[in-house]
Protein backbone atom coordinates (compact mmCIF):
# COMPACT_ATOMS: atom_id res chain seq x y z
CA UNK A 1 0.00 0.00 0.00
CA UNK A 2 2.88 2.36 0.87
CA UNK A 3 4.31 1.74 -2.59
CA UNK A 4 0.96 2.56 -4.22
CA UNK A 5 0.72 5.78 -2.22
CA UNK A 6 4.21 6.72 -3.36
CA UNK A 7 3.28 6.04 -6.97
CA UNK A 8 0.03 8.02 -6.66
CA UNK A 9 1.91 10.95 -5.13
CA UNK A 10 4.44 10.77 -7.97
CA UNK A 11 1.59 10.87 -10.53
CA UNK A 12 0.19 13.98 -8.82
CA UNK A 13 3.57 15.72 -8.75
CA UNK A 14 4.33 14.87 -12.35
CA UNK A 15 1.21 16.59 -13.70
CA UNK A 16 0.49 19.37 -11.19
CA UNK A 17 -1.94 21.37 -13.34
CA UNK A 18 -4.23 18.42 -14.01
CA UNK A 19 -4.10 17.53 -10.32
CA UNK A 20 -4.86 21.13 -9.37
CA UNK A 21 -7.85 21.19 -11.74
CA UNK A 22 -9.22 18.01 -10.19
CA UNK A 23 -8.80 19.29 -6.64
CA UNK A 24 -10.30 22.68 -7.54
CA UNK A 25 -13.47 21.24 -9.04
CA UNK A 26 -13.91 18.97 -6.03
CA UNK A 27 -13.23 21.95 -3.76
CA UNK A 28 -15.85 24.04 -5.56
CA UNK A 29 -18.45 21.27 -5.34
CA UNK A 30 -17.91 20.79 -1.64
CA UNK A 31 -17.69 24.50 -0.92
CA UNK A 32 -21.13 25.01 -2.45
CA UNK A 33 -22.40 21.88 -0.71
CA UNK A 34 -21.18 23.12 2.69
CA UNK A 35 -22.56 26.62 2.22
CA UNK A 36 -25.95 25.30 1.13
CA UNK A 37 -26.01 22.83 4.01
CA UNK A 38 -25.29 25.59 6.52
CA UNK A 39 -27.83 27.96 4.94
CA UNK A 40 -30.47 25.23 4.76
CA UNK A 41 -29.80 24.25 8.39
CA UNK A 42 -29.92 27.89 9.48
CA UNK A 43 -33.13 28.67 7.62
CA UNK A 44 -34.72 25.60 9.19
CA UNK A 45 -33.87 26.98 12.64
CA UNK A 46 -35.31 30.40 11.65
CA UNK A 47 -38.48 28.73 10.43
CA UNK A 48 -38.79 26.66 13.60
CA UNK A 49 -38.28 29.81 15.65
CA UNK A 50 -41.17 31.54 13.92
CA UNK A 51 -43.33 28.44 14.07
CA UNK A 52 -42.73 28.08 17.80
CA UNK A 53 -43.88 31.65 18.46
CA UNK A 54 -47.60 32.42 18.77
CA UNK A 55 -48.74 32.89 15.23
CA UNK A 56 -52.16 34.45 15.96
CA UNK A 57 -53.04 37.03 18.60
CA UNK A 58 -56.64 37.99 19.36
CA UNK A 59 -57.31 41.22 21.26
CA UNK A 60 -60.49 41.20 23.34
CA UNK A 61 -63.14 43.88 23.76
CA UNK A 62 -63.19 45.45 27.23
CA UNK A 63 -66.56 43.84 28.03
CA UNK A 64 -65.32 40.27 27.34
CA UNK A 65 -65.80 38.11 30.45
CA UNK A 66 -63.52 35.33 31.71
CA UNK A 67 -66.26 32.81 30.94
CA UNK A 68 -66.54 33.93 27.30
CA UNK A 69 -62.75 33.78 26.91
CA UNK A 70 -62.68 30.22 28.36
CA UNK A 71 -65.42 29.20 25.94
CA UNK A 72 -63.40 30.59 23.03
CA UNK A 73 -60.29 28.72 24.24
CA UNK A 74 -62.27 25.48 24.41
CA UNK A 75 -63.64 26.09 20.91
CA UNK A 76 -60.09 26.56 19.58
CA UNK A 77 -58.79 23.40 21.25
CA UNK A 78 -61.75 21.47 19.80
CA UNK A 79 -60.61 22.31 16.26
CA UNK A 80 -57.55 20.06 16.93
CA UNK A 81 -55.36 22.52 15.05
CA UNK A 82 -54.08 24.48 18.00
CA UNK A 83 -50.88 23.60 19.87
CA UNK A 84 -51.45 25.89 22.84
CA UNK A 85 -53.09 29.14 23.93
CA UNK A 86 -51.87 31.76 26.34
CA UNK A 87 -54.12 34.40 27.88
CA UNK A 88 -52.51 37.80 28.54
CA UNK A 89 -54.58 39.91 30.96
CA UNK A 90 -54.66 43.72 30.91
CA UNK A 91 -52.22 43.79 33.88
CA UNK A 92 -49.81 41.40 32.14
CA UNK A 93 -50.08 43.50 28.99
CA UNK A 94 -49.07 46.53 31.01
CA UNK A 95 -46.06 44.63 32.41
CA UNK A 96 -44.97 43.75 28.90
CA UNK A 97 -45.50 47.34 27.76
CA UNK A 98 -43.42 48.64 30.67
CA UNK A 99 -40.63 46.18 29.93
CA UNK A 100 -40.58 47.18 26.28
CA UNK A 101 -40.56 50.91 27.05
CA UNK A 102 -38.49 51.03 30.22
CA UNK A 103 -36.20 53.65 28.70
CA UNK A 104 -39.10 55.96 27.75
CA UNK A 105 -40.52 57.38 31.03
CA UNK A 106 -42.91 59.68 29.17
CA UNK A 107 -44.61 56.77 27.45
CA UNK A 108 -44.85 54.88 30.73
CA UNK A 109 -46.59 57.70 32.56
CA UNK A 110 -49.42 57.98 30.04
CA UNK A 111 -50.43 54.31 30.00
CA UNK A 112 -52.51 52.34 32.51
CA UNK A 113 -53.80 48.78 32.44
CA UNK A 114 -57.28 49.97 31.49
CA UNK A 115 -56.36 51.24 28.08
CA UNK A 116 -54.48 48.05 27.09
CA UNK A 117 -56.63 45.15 25.81
CA UNK A 118 -56.45 41.61 27.16
CA UNK A 119 -55.32 39.15 24.49
CA UNK A 120 -55.05 35.49 23.61
CA UNK A 121 -51.84 34.20 21.93
CA UNK A 122 -52.45 31.09 19.86
CA UNK A 123 -49.77 28.66 18.60
CA UNK A 124 -50.88 26.50 15.67
CA UNK A 125 -49.79 22.93 15.04
CA UNK A 126 -49.54 23.35 11.29
CA UNK A 127 -49.04 26.74 9.70
CA UNK A 128 -51.35 25.78 6.81
CA UNK A 129 -54.34 26.02 9.21
CA UNK A 130 -53.60 29.60 10.21
CA UNK A 131 -56.51 31.07 8.17
CA UNK A 132 -59.04 28.68 9.68
CA UNK A 133 -57.95 29.40 13.26
CA UNK A 134 -57.86 33.14 12.60
CA UNK A 135 -61.40 32.82 11.18
CA UNK A 136 -62.69 31.23 14.40
CA UNK A 137 -61.25 34.12 16.39
CA UNK A 138 -62.55 36.80 14.02
CA UNK A 139 -66.10 35.39 14.19
CA UNK A 140 -66.17 35.52 17.97
CA UNK A 141 -68.14 38.51 19.31
CA UNK A 142 -65.72 39.10 22.19
CA UNK A 143 -62.79 39.66 19.86
CA UNK A 144 -61.94 43.21 18.79
CA UNK A 145 -58.99 42.47 16.48
CA UNK A 146 -56.99 39.50 15.19
CA UNK A 147 -53.33 39.85 14.21
CA UNK A 148 -51.40 37.05 12.53
CA UNK A 149 -48.04 36.66 10.79
CA UNK A 150 -49.23 34.57 7.86
CA UNK A 151 -47.01 36.27 5.30
CA UNK A 152 -43.74 35.93 7.24
CA UNK A 153 -44.05 32.22 7.87
CA UNK A 154 -45.35 31.43 4.42
CA UNK A 155 -42.50 33.37 2.85
CA UNK A 156 -40.04 31.50 5.05
CA UNK A 157 -41.54 28.19 3.98
CA UNK A 158 -41.13 29.15 0.36
CA UNK A 159 -37.55 30.30 0.91
CA UNK A 160 -36.37 27.22 2.79
CA UNK A 161 -38.02 25.00 0.17
CA UNK A 162 -36.34 26.90 -2.64
CA UNK A 163 -32.94 26.90 -0.92
CA UNK A 164 -33.19 23.15 -0.44
CA UNK A 165 -34.23 22.51 -4.04
CA UNK A 166 -31.58 24.82 -5.54
CA UNK A 167 -28.95 23.32 -3.23
CA UNK A 168 -29.80 19.74 -4.14
CA UNK A 169 -29.89 20.60 -7.85
CA UNK A 170 -26.61 22.49 -7.81
CA UNK A 171 -24.80 19.88 -5.69
CA UNK A 172 -26.06 17.08 -7.96
CA UNK A 173 -24.86 18.84 -11.11
CA UNK A 174 -21.49 19.75 -9.57
CA UNK A 175 -21.01 16.22 -8.23
CA UNK A 176 -21.62 14.85 -11.72
CA UNK A 177 -19.19 17.39 -13.20
CA UNK A 178 -16.58 16.48 -10.54
CA UNK A 179 -17.04 12.80 -11.28
CA UNK A 180 -16.62 13.37 -15.03
CA UNK A 181 -13.57 15.59 -14.53
CA UNK A 182 -11.90 12.96 -12.34
CA UNK A 183 -12.74 10.40 -15.03
CA UNK A 184 -11.20 12.58 -17.77
CA UNK A 185 -8.10 13.59 -15.78
CA UNK A 186 -7.31 10.06 -14.66
CA UNK A 187 -8.01 8.92 -18.24
CA UNK A 188 -5.46 11.45 -19.51
CA UNK A 189 -2.92 10.31 -16.95
CA UNK A 190 -3.45 6.70 -17.99
CA UNK A 191 -2.85 7.66 -21.63
CA UNK A 192 0.40 9.39 -20.64
CA UNK A 193 1.50 6.28 -18.73
CA UNK A 194 0.30 3.82 -21.35
CA UNK A 195 3.74 2.34 -22.00
CA UNK A 196 4.41 2.04 -18.26
CA UNK A 197 1.16 0.11 -17.82
CA UNK A 198 2.05 -2.12 -20.76
CA UNK A 199 5.42 -2.92 -19.18
CA UNK A 200 3.80 -3.70 -15.85
CA UNK A 201 1.32 -6.03 -17.57
CA UNK A 202 4.14 -7.81 -19.38
CA UNK A 203 6.05 -8.47 -16.18
CA UNK A 204 2.95 -9.94 -14.52
CA UNK A 205 1.24 -7.07 -12.71
CA UNK A 206 -2.41 -7.79 -11.99
CA UNK A 207 -5.13 -5.29 -12.92
CA UNK A 208 -5.60 -4.52 -9.22
CA UNK A 209 -1.90 -3.64 -8.89
CA UNK A 210 -2.05 -1.33 -11.91
CA UNK A 211 -5.34 0.19 -10.81
CA UNK A 212 -4.39 0.90 -7.17
CA UNK A 213 -2.27 4.09 -7.60
CA UNK A 214 -4.82 5.65 -9.96
CA UNK A 215 -7.72 4.93 -7.60
CA UNK A 216 -5.68 6.30 -4.69
CA UNK A 217 -5.00 9.41 -6.77
CA UNK A 218 -8.74 9.91 -7.30
CA UNK A 219 -9.35 9.42 -3.57
CA UNK A 220 -6.66 12.01 -2.76
CA UNK A 221 -8.39 14.53 -5.06
CA UNK A 222 -11.79 13.83 -3.50
CA UNK A 223 -10.60 14.03 0.10
CA UNK A 224 -8.43 17.12 -0.50
CA UNK A 225 -11.32 18.95 -2.15
CA UNK A 226 -13.71 18.00 0.66
CA UNK A 227 -11.39 18.95 3.52
CA UNK A 228 -10.27 22.24 1.93
CA UNK A 229 -13.85 23.29 1.16
CA UNK A 230 -15.01 22.37 4.64
CA UNK A 231 -12.10 24.32 6.18
CA UNK A 232 -12.80 27.44 4.14
CA UNK A 233 -16.54 27.25 4.87
CA UNK A 234 -15.81 26.99 8.59
CA UNK A 235 -13.48 30.00 8.46
CA UNK A 236 -16.13 31.97 6.53
CA UNK A 237 -18.74 30.98 9.11
CA UNK A 238 -16.55 32.16 11.99
CA UNK A 239 -15.85 35.41 10.15
CA UNK A 240 -19.55 36.00 9.43
CA UNK A 241 -20.79 35.04 12.91
CA UNK A 242 -20.91 38.61 14.38
CA UNK A 243 -22.82 39.89 11.34
CA UNK A 244 -25.30 37.01 11.41
CA UNK A 245 -25.94 37.47 15.15
CA UNK A 246 -26.50 41.20 14.63
CA UNK A 247 -28.90 40.53 11.74
CA UNK A 248 -30.95 37.76 13.32
CA UNK A 249 -31.01 39.29 16.84
CA UNK A 250 -33.02 36.83 18.98
CA UNK A 251 -33.12 33.87 16.59
CA UNK A 252 -30.75 31.20 18.00
CA UNK A 253 -29.05 30.15 14.74
CA UNK A 254 -25.52 30.46 16.11
CA UNK A 255 -23.27 29.00 17.27
CA UNK A 256 -23.57 26.02 14.95
CA UNK A 257 -23.06 22.91 17.14
CA UNK A 258 -19.66 21.19 16.79
CA UNK A 259 -21.23 17.82 16.14
CA UNK A 260 -23.12 19.29 13.16
CA UNK A 261 -19.89 20.75 11.72
CA UNK A 262 -18.12 17.40 12.20
CA UNK A 263 -21.01 15.47 10.64
CA UNK A 264 -20.79 17.76 7.59
CA UNK A 265 -17.04 17.07 7.38
CA UNK A 266 -17.61 13.32 7.69
CA UNK A 267 -20.30 13.25 5.00
CA UNK A 268 -18.24 15.39 2.63
CA UNK A 269 -15.14 13.22 3.10
CA UNK A 270 -17.23 10.15 2.39
CA UNK A 271 -18.70 11.79 -0.71
CA UNK A 272 -15.21 12.87 -1.83
CA UNK A 273 -13.94 9.35 -1.32
CA UNK A 274 -16.81 7.87 -3.34
CA UNK A 275 -16.62 10.39 -6.22
CA UNK A 276 -12.79 10.18 -6.40
CA UNK A 277 -12.51 6.42 -6.17
CA UNK A 278 -15.44 5.67 -8.46
CA UNK A 279 -14.31 8.15 -11.14
CA UNK A 280 -10.77 6.83 -11.21
CA UNK A 281 -11.85 3.19 -10.92
CA UNK A 282 -14.09 3.50 -13.98
CA UNK A 283 -11.35 5.36 -15.92
CA UNK A 284 -8.79 2.59 -15.28
CA UNK A 285 -11.33 -0.15 -15.83
CA UNK A 286 -12.19 1.25 -19.25
CA UNK A 287 -8.52 1.31 -20.20
CA UNK A 288 -7.69 -2.16 -18.87
CA UNK A 289 -10.65 -3.65 -20.72
Amino acid at each position, binding site marked *: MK*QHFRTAWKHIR*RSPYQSLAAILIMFLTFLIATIFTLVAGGSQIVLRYFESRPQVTAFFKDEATAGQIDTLKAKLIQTGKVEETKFISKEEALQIYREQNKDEPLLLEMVTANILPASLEVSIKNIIDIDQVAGVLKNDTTVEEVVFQEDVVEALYRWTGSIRKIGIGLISVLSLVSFLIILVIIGMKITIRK*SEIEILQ*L*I*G*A*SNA*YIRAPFVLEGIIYGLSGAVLAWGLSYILLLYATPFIIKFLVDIPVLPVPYYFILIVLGIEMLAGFIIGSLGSFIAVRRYLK
Partner: protein
Amino acid sequence: MVKFENVTKKFGETTTLDSVSFEIEKGEFVFVIGCSGAGKSTLVKLILREYLPTEGTVTVDGIDLLDLRRKEIPDYRKKIGFVFQDFKLLTDMTVFENVAIALRILGEKQEDIDERVETILDLVGLKDRKDFFPSQLSGGELQRTCLARAVVTDPDIVIADEPTGNLDIGIARQIVDIFKKINETGKIVIMATHNFEIVNEVEKRVIELENGKLVSDKKKGKYHIS
Protein backbone atom coordinates in the same frame (compact mmCIF):
# COMPACT_ATOMS: atom_id res chain seq x y z
CA MET B 1 7.94 -27.78 -20.41
CA VAL B 2 7.33 -25.55 -23.44
CA LYS B 3 5.50 -27.30 -26.22
CA PHE B 4 4.32 -26.00 -29.59
CA GLU B 5 2.00 -28.33 -31.49
CA ASN B 6 1.26 -27.36 -35.08
CA VAL B 7 1.05 -23.73 -34.10
CA THR B 8 -0.08 -21.30 -36.76
CA LYS B 9 -0.50 -17.59 -36.19
CA LYS B 10 -2.17 -15.39 -38.73
CA PHE B 11 -2.78 -11.66 -38.75
CA GLY B 12 -5.54 -11.23 -41.28
CA GLU B 13 -4.28 -12.90 -44.44
CA THR B 14 -0.63 -12.83 -43.34
CA THR B 15 0.75 -15.99 -41.77
CA THR B 16 3.61 -15.23 -39.38
CA LEU B 17 3.98 -18.75 -37.98
CA ASP B 18 3.06 -21.79 -40.02
CA SER B 19 2.42 -25.13 -38.34
CA VAL B 20 5.38 -24.94 -35.97
CA SER B 21 6.03 -27.81 -33.57
CA PHE B 22 8.81 -28.29 -31.03
CA GLU B 23 9.34 -29.11 -27.39
CA ILE B 24 11.75 -27.56 -24.90
CA GLU B 25 12.70 -29.45 -21.75
CA LYS B 26 13.66 -28.08 -18.35
CA GLY B 27 17.21 -26.70 -18.22
CA GLU B 28 17.57 -26.22 -21.98
CA PHE B 29 19.15 -23.19 -23.64
CA VAL B 30 17.53 -22.59 -27.02
CA PHE B 31 18.26 -20.03 -29.68
CA VAL B 32 15.41 -19.14 -32.03
CA ILE B 33 17.01 -17.69 -35.11
CA GLY B 34 15.91 -16.32 -38.41
CA CYS B 35 15.95 -13.14 -40.43
CA SER B 36 13.63 -10.22 -39.75
CA GLY B 37 10.02 -11.28 -40.31
CA ALA B 38 10.81 -14.97 -39.84
CA GLY B 39 8.38 -15.21 -36.92
CA LYS B 40 10.77 -15.12 -33.94
CA SER B 41 8.96 -12.34 -32.06
CA THR B 42 5.57 -13.92 -32.75
CA LEU B 43 6.83 -17.19 -31.27
CA VAL B 44 8.12 -15.42 -28.19
CA LYS B 45 4.88 -13.44 -27.76
CA LEU B 46 2.87 -16.64 -28.02
CA ILE B 47 4.80 -18.04 -25.05
CA LEU B 48 4.24 -14.82 -23.15
CA ARG B 49 0.53 -15.10 -23.96
CA GLU B 50 0.49 -11.72 -25.66
CA TYR B 51 -0.90 -13.51 -28.70
CA LEU B 52 -3.07 -16.58 -29.02
CA PRO B 53 -2.41 -19.13 -31.75
CA THR B 54 -4.80 -19.16 -34.70
CA GLU B 55 -4.36 -22.94 -34.88
CA GLY B 56 -2.56 -25.51 -32.73
CA THR B 57 -1.67 -25.39 -29.06
CA VAL B 58 1.01 -23.79 -26.94
CA THR B 59 1.57 -25.54 -23.63
CA VAL B 60 3.82 -24.15 -20.91
CA ASP B 61 4.46 -26.14 -17.76
CA GLY B 62 1.40 -28.24 -18.54
CA ILE B 63 -0.89 -25.24 -19.06
CA ASP B 64 -2.59 -24.88 -22.42
CA LEU B 65 -2.40 -21.14 -22.98
CA LEU B 66 -5.70 -21.20 -24.84
CA ASP B 67 -7.38 -22.30 -21.60
CA LEU B 68 -5.82 -19.48 -19.63
CA ARG B 69 -8.46 -16.98 -18.52
CA ARG B 70 -7.78 -13.25 -18.74
CA LYS B 71 -7.43 -12.80 -15.00
CA GLU B 72 -5.01 -15.75 -14.80
CA ILE B 73 -2.54 -14.15 -17.22
CA PRO B 74 -0.70 -12.01 -14.62
CA ASP B 75 -0.04 -15.07 -12.44
CA TYR B 76 1.13 -17.03 -15.46
CA ARG B 77 3.50 -14.24 -16.51
CA LYS B 78 5.06 -14.18 -13.07
CA LYS B 79 6.59 -17.57 -13.93
CA ILE B 80 8.36 -16.09 -16.91
CA GLY B 81 11.22 -13.64 -17.00
CA PHE B 82 11.18 -11.56 -20.15
CA VAL B 83 14.04 -9.56 -21.68
CA PHE B 84 13.06 -7.08 -24.36
CA GLN B 85 15.13 -5.76 -27.23
CA ASP B 86 14.03 -2.20 -26.38
CA PHE B 87 14.56 -2.86 -22.63
CA LYS B 88 11.11 -1.57 -21.56
CA LEU B 89 12.40 -0.02 -18.37
CA LEU B 90 10.39 2.50 -16.38
CA THR B 91 12.14 5.79 -17.07
CA ASP B 92 11.20 7.49 -13.81
CA MET B 93 12.62 4.70 -11.67
CA THR B 94 16.21 3.93 -10.76
CA VAL B 95 17.94 0.68 -11.71
CA PHE B 96 17.19 -0.67 -8.23
CA GLU B 97 13.51 0.28 -8.43
CA ASN B 98 13.16 -1.14 -11.95
CA VAL B 99 14.40 -4.50 -10.71
CA ALA B 100 12.51 -4.31 -7.43
CA ILE B 101 9.15 -3.71 -9.13
CA ALA B 102 9.05 -7.32 -10.34
CA LEU B 103 9.23 -8.43 -6.69
CA ARG B 104 6.77 -5.79 -5.51
CA ILE B 105 4.24 -7.16 -7.99
CA LEU B 106 4.68 -10.52 -6.26
CA GLY B 107 4.00 -8.85 -2.91
CA GLU B 108 7.41 -9.62 -1.40
CA LYS B 109 8.52 -7.97 1.85
CA GLN B 110 10.78 -4.93 1.60
CA GLU B 111 13.69 -6.66 3.38
CA ASP B 112 13.55 -9.59 0.95
CA ILE B 113 13.29 -7.21 -1.98
CA ASP B 114 16.39 -5.27 -0.86
CA GLU B 115 18.40 -8.45 -0.40
CA ARG B 116 17.40 -10.12 -3.65
CA VAL B 117 17.81 -7.01 -5.78
CA GLU B 118 21.29 -6.39 -4.34
CA THR B 119 22.25 -10.01 -5.12
CA ILE B 120 20.97 -9.91 -8.68
CA LEU B 121 22.54 -6.51 -9.41
CA ASP B 122 25.82 -7.98 -8.21
CA LEU B 123 25.35 -10.91 -10.63
CA VAL B 124 24.79 -8.64 -13.63
CA GLY B 125 27.52 -6.21 -12.54
CA LEU B 126 25.31 -3.21 -11.85
CA LYS B 127 25.70 -2.82 -8.09
CA ASP B 128 27.46 0.52 -8.49
CA ARG B 129 24.75 1.76 -10.88
CA LYS B 130 21.74 0.93 -8.72
CA ASP B 131 20.77 4.56 -8.13
CA PHE B 132 21.11 5.55 -11.77
CA PHE B 133 18.08 6.28 -13.95
CA PRO B 134 17.74 4.53 -17.36
CA SER B 135 18.66 7.76 -19.14
CA GLN B 136 22.05 7.67 -17.40
CA LEU B 137 22.94 4.13 -18.54
CA SER B 138 24.65 2.70 -21.61
CA GLY B 139 22.92 0.17 -23.91
CA GLY B 140 24.65 -2.75 -22.24
CA GLU B 141 23.73 -1.52 -18.78
CA LEU B 142 20.12 -1.05 -19.82
CA GLN B 143 20.00 -4.59 -21.12
CA ARG B 144 21.58 -5.94 -17.94
CA THR B 145 18.99 -4.05 -15.89
CA CYS B 146 16.24 -5.61 -17.98
CA LEU B 147 17.87 -9.01 -17.50
CA ALA B 148 18.12 -8.47 -13.74
CA ARG B 149 14.41 -7.61 -13.62
CA ALA B 150 13.60 -10.76 -15.60
CA VAL B 151 15.45 -13.14 -13.30
CA VAL B 152 15.07 -11.51 -9.88
CA THR B 153 11.77 -13.33 -9.32
CA ASP B 154 13.49 -16.66 -9.93
CA PRO B 155 11.26 -17.64 -12.88
CA ASP B 156 11.24 -21.12 -14.46
CA ILE B 157 11.65 -19.72 -17.95
CA VAL B 158 13.65 -16.76 -19.20
CA ILE B 159 12.74 -15.48 -22.65
CA ALA B 160 14.69 -12.85 -24.52
CA ASP B 161 13.64 -11.21 -27.76
CA GLU B 162 16.72 -9.91 -29.58
CA PRO B 163 18.49 -9.00 -26.32
CA THR B 164 21.71 -8.18 -28.14
CA GLY B 165 20.06 -6.42 -31.05
CA ASN B 166 21.15 -2.95 -30.04
CA LEU B 167 24.53 -3.87 -28.57
CA ASP B 168 28.06 -4.19 -29.93
CA ILE B 169 29.58 -7.67 -29.96
CA GLY B 170 31.63 -7.22 -26.78
CA ILE B 171 28.64 -6.17 -24.71
CA ALA B 172 26.48 -8.82 -26.42
CA ARG B 173 28.94 -11.50 -25.25
CA GLN B 174 28.70 -10.23 -21.68
CA ILE B 175 24.91 -10.43 -21.84
CA VAL B 176 24.97 -13.95 -23.26
CA ASP B 177 27.42 -14.99 -20.54
CA ILE B 178 24.86 -13.91 -17.94
CA PHE B 179 22.18 -15.92 -19.77
CA LYS B 180 24.49 -18.95 -19.64
CA LYS B 181 24.94 -18.51 -15.89
CA ILE B 182 21.18 -18.32 -15.46
CA ASN B 183 20.76 -21.46 -17.59
CA GLU B 184 23.29 -23.29 -15.42
CA THR B 185 20.89 -22.89 -12.47
CA GLY B 186 18.43 -25.17 -14.31
CA LYS B 187 16.21 -22.60 -15.94
CA ILE B 188 14.99 -22.70 -19.51
CA VAL B 189 16.48 -19.89 -21.58
CA ILE B 190 14.88 -19.08 -24.93
CA MET B 191 16.64 -16.41 -26.91
CA ALA B 192 15.31 -15.08 -30.19
CA THR B 193 18.19 -13.55 -32.14
CA HIS B 194 19.68 -12.99 -35.56
CA ASN B 195 23.16 -12.58 -34.13
CA PHE B 196 24.68 -15.74 -35.68
CA GLU B 197 28.12 -14.97 -34.28
CA ILE B 198 26.82 -15.31 -30.74
CA VAL B 199 24.84 -18.43 -31.65
CA ASN B 200 27.98 -20.11 -33.01
CA GLU B 201 30.03 -19.18 -29.97
CA VAL B 202 27.61 -20.58 -27.44
CA GLU B 203 26.82 -23.86 -29.23
CA LYS B 204 23.39 -24.62 -27.86
CA ARG B 205 20.17 -25.90 -29.41
CA VAL B 206 19.09 -23.82 -32.41
CA ILE B 207 15.56 -23.57 -33.82
CA GLU B 208 15.58 -21.85 -37.19
CA LEU B 209 12.56 -20.12 -38.64
CA GLU B 210 12.08 -18.94 -42.18
CA ASN B 211 8.94 -17.18 -43.36
CA GLY B 212 7.10 -18.51 -40.32
CA LYS B 213 8.11 -22.14 -40.90
CA LEU B 214 10.43 -24.18 -38.74
CA VAL B 215 13.21 -25.17 -41.14
CA SER B 216 15.65 -26.78 -38.73
CA ASP B 217 15.98 -27.80 -35.08
CA LYS B 218 19.59 -28.65 -34.23
CA LYS B 219 20.01 -30.11 -30.80
CA LYS B 220 23.55 -28.81 -30.39
CA GLY B 221 26.36 -27.45 -32.45
CA LYS B 222 27.36 -24.58 -34.63
CA TYR B 223 24.96 -22.88 -36.93
CA HIS B 224 26.27 -22.49 -40.42
CA ILE B 225 25.07 -19.52 -42.36
CA SER B 226 23.86 -20.76 -45.70
